[in-house]
């Protein structure tokens, strides 16, 4: 005779490892921030490599206004940290600034920005590996001289 199976919890099915389901009656739901105890790279499914070499710290990122239209997935159904990134990119912003303001580690930010770019939500204005040319340097010099 089969033992009686334990009673299934009522509510939405939970997917292991139960991440992102705080507030669904999990025994640990009362704990502070759901993300606070996680190693940063949980957000990238453990990926630490494969950062797009185009994405530097100073690289400018902008949200595509047609992003959700193209992907068919509204921003509201993205993971919270992806939504947080999208919210910061209405105007051009650097990857470093996204990392600081979204409080995500730099490596994590670069991977997630790369994901959002690949999915069509973000434009990444690829950096140039070359040193700036004399004209650009002269513009910076003039700009700094104007500071008083």
């Amino acid at each position, binding site marked *: 005779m089969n033992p009686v199976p334990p009673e299934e919890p009522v509510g939405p099915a939970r997917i292991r490892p139960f991440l992102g389901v705080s507030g669904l009656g999990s025994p640990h739901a009362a704990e502070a921030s759901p993300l606070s105890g996680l190693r*940063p*790279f949980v957000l990238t499914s453990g990926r*630490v490599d494969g950062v797009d070499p185009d994405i*530097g*710290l*100073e*690289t*400018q*990122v*902008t949200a595509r*206004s047609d992003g959700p239209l193209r992907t068919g997935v509204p921003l509201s159904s993205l993971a919270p940290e992806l939504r947080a990134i999208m919210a910061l990119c209405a*105007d*051009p912003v*650097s990857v*470093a*600034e996204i*990392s*600081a*303001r979204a409080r995500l*580690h*730099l*490596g994590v*930010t670069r991977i997630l920005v790369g994901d959002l770019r690949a999915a069509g939500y973000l*434009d990444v*204005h690829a*950096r*140039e*590996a*070359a*040193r*700036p*040319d*004399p004209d*650009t*340097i*002269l*513009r*910076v*010099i*003039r*700009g*700094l*001289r104007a*500071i*008083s």
Partner: protein
Amino acid sequence: MDFVRSPEQAPPIPVKIVVAGGFGVGKTTTVGAISEISPLTTEAVMTSAGVGVDDPGQATGKTTTTVAMDFGCVTIDRSLKLYLFGTPGQSRFGFMWDDLSLGALGALVVVDSSRLDDCYPAVDYFERARLPFVVAVNAFDGKLVHELDEVRWALAIDERIPVVAFDARNRISVRDALLVLLDRALDDAVREQSV
């Protein structure tokens, strides 16, 4: 006449300067003095093979360290924005310097003249990377523990590398140190172009 704006604002071209130096030499103060935003902090996780210098008997493993980096920016004009990244000065953070140096205008190596040791790794690195750099001695309270010539001698750097004294708290002083660096960068860029 109305100015027709493109619906999506074109992003500025970013240029960057690395502000390197040991712990507590005034990197963040330097960045904050010139930045138009209060310096932001970002963190990078680095994994490095433990080298076990102090304890060779111990099994070599991997260690994970979180490195904090402060940065700020200056809008040069509508299409050009200067970023300043303050980075720790230990050689084991070299992985970050590779990334930071890529496409950078140059580096300002901030030095406390009473603790010159701190800046050796950064000086070494930028020399090898052939990135234009300037040694900027932070004159705490307007005083230098060593004369600039002594600093140059102690660091054994090339005559062509500028060594300047500056006050990290003073906007104009930081600006002038950056201008010395940019002059170097301009020289290099012009020379490269004419080759």
